[in-house]
């Protein structure tokens, strides 16, 4: 004699909580995602400042130069040994701007230097940029709580 099991023949899983959770996670990551093309290198640990606030609007003509702890410089994803080696790259940027009829004096040089790097090396970067014809500089720092 065939005995029929008492339970249902087909167990239907309730996917609703899992799908709810997954969509919430997707929404969370979509809000957090950052598509900005700002050059940020993980090797650069910025110094902190209580009054450094993010700019209300992005710079019109930014040019980012980064310096890692040992003084090496990163520009356009290239690791350069010192400030002097920036010169050809900066001249190239200047030529491109002149072709586009833009004034190099309006370019905002953003300096992201490691907190333990030597100030003299940062000043060397500024000096090389000045000699090429750039005037506006921005020192970037990490925002922290006030005094």
């Amino acid at each position: 004699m065939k005995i029929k099991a008492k339970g249902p023949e087909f167990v239907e899983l309730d996917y609703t909580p899992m799908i709810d959770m997954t969509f919430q996670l997707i929404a969370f990551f979509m809000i957090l995602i950052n598509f900005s093309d700002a050059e940020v290198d993980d090797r650069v640990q910025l110094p902190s400042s209580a009054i450094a606030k993010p700019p209300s609007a992005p710079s019109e003509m930014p040019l980012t130069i980064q310096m890692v702890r040992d003084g090496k410089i990163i520009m356009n994803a290239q690791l350069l040994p010192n400030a002097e080696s920036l010169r050809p790259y900066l001249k190239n940027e200047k030529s491109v701007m002149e072709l586009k009829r833009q004034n190099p004096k309006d370019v905002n040089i953003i300096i992201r230097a490691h907190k333990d790097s030597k100030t003299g090396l940062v000043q060397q970067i500024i000096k090389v940029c000045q000699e090429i014809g750039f005037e506006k500089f921005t020192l970037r720092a990490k925002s922290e709580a006030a005094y």
Partner: protein
Amino acid sequence: MPLRIKKAGLPDKIPIDMTPMIDIVFQLLTFFCMTLKVASMEGDFSIKMPLAAPRAGLPDPNQLPPIKLRLRSDAAGNLVELSLNDRAFAGADRFKQLHNHIASIVGEGSLAASAEVELDCDFNLKYEYVIEAITAVSGSTTPDGQLVKLVEKIKFAPPRSE
């Protein structure tokens, strides 16, 4: 007794195949997880430093001479002396002292717009001290988050040799 007529050909419950949707959703989740970059907020200090050129004509009478801030370091790059003109600041709260001193000089008057601080730093000085000094002379934030500006013009003295 009411007669119940079953529609021919249609089952009671139409099962929806969730597999493709769940596949896509998990792929999206993986994409967002892998592209997430946790970055802290960053802020800027602007400095305008044209290359020094001979000035034509008379100097601007409203332009005050720069307030010279000297930052001296040891060989390891640690700050050993912080002085503004001839006044030295020492102790753990030296930057707070500097901030208070600058606030007493500049105050809330018209000097804030015209005052200029020139940072004279040793070559080996760690850059974080420079940012700390710029923070101290630039202003502070009130408990409700408002920025109180002090000196807006900041420049570097010519770099010292190593």
